[in-house]
């Protein structure tokens, strides 16, 4: 597999790091909101927010990297609709990677709880305390997350389809060891 046929090591690392972080933040968010108020709940809420801020920063870094590094080309045999679908899905994923932490941050401010990244870096409150707005933003945050869940299922499903049905080696662009195994 040639170097041009896969993403850069930086792009690959950031992709999988973001994947792991959102896989942690999503169930954490679901669990903590159901807990009764306790020290554990306060801890989990903070960890969830720190994960979210990290995802936002990594997503922004990925966008910058993406803008300055051409991704590997898609296989020439890939039908046009699949290309459009892939690009559309990737765009939406990026939108949500930024919008979800942003909605969480705003929701937190509206509920009167500032976000202090890693317990040391206070982020400014862009909006003041407003209970109704806080409740509305919570709905938005949840909806966006279920949207993300759907997108991730589609994203993973497409990757598996390419790997096991189309067998076009596209997954190896993001998992280089698959490409190595193939060439051995």
């Amino acid at each position, binding site marked *: 597999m040639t170097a041009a046929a896969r993403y850069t090591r930086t792009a690959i690392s950031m992709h999988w790091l973001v994947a792991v972080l959102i896989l942690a933040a999503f169930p954490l968010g679901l669990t903590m909101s159901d807990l009764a*108020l*306790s*020290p554990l709940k*306060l*801890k989990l*809420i*903070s960890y969830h927010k720190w994960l979210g801020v990290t995802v936002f920063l990594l997503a922004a870094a990925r966008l910058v990297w993406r803008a300055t590094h051409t991704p590997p080309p898609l296989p020439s045999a890939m039908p046009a609709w699949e290309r459009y679908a892939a690009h559309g899905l990737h765009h939406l994923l990026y939108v949500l990677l930024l919008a979800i932490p942003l909605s969480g941050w705003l929701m937190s401010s509206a*509920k*009167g*709880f*500032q*976000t*202090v990244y890693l*317990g*040391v870096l206070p982020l400014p409150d862009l909006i003041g305390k407003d209970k109704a707005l806080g409740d509305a933003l919570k709905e938005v945050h949840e909806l966006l997350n279920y949207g993300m869940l759907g997108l991730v299922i589609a994203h993973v499903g497409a990757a598996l389809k390419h790997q096991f049905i189309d067998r076009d080696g596209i997954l190896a662009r993001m998992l280089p060891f698959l490409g190595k195994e193939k060439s051995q």
Partner: protein
Amino acid sequence: MIRLLAILSLLSSSFACGAEPSAAQLDKSTLVFVSRQMNVPVEGAFKKFTAQINIDPARPEAGRARIEIDLASIDAGSSEANDEIKSKSWFNTREFPTASFVSSSVKALGGGRFETTGKMTIKGKTLESRVPFTLKQEKGVLILDGTFPLKRLDYAIGSGVWSDTSVVADEVQVKFHFVLTH
């Protein structure tokens, strides 16, 4: 509002024979606090309290104050927190509905700043504490402002699992703004 007025009239009548007593105007006075939860500053307030303060700007050292706080009137920042804060491990408002501060002396620190020493009673525990404040005279009113740190664990506020100060810091900043007619 009627209740507030009732408290005010009660105070003024009980002071009718005293020398220049002042009850804080409750609608203009505030008693707020900032706690730190996971290092996140969270603001709260007490909506109901009475402040009987007798202070003469010409002789502040002779001043006396008695503050009583209706602990169940607390707004701890969220409805969830408001329920929790009244429970046994926090204020236990059923057994200890009020907290109080009764001053015993006032010391001038210079530059319009003062410090009062007195007895702070919270959750059945009384400790000697010092509270700094400033005094300002404005058309017909006296304004007392002050901020002081209160160590919540000194009074067992937030005991049991909540005594973990890495989650909720021991130190709580209390801030008061009392407007007195005189």
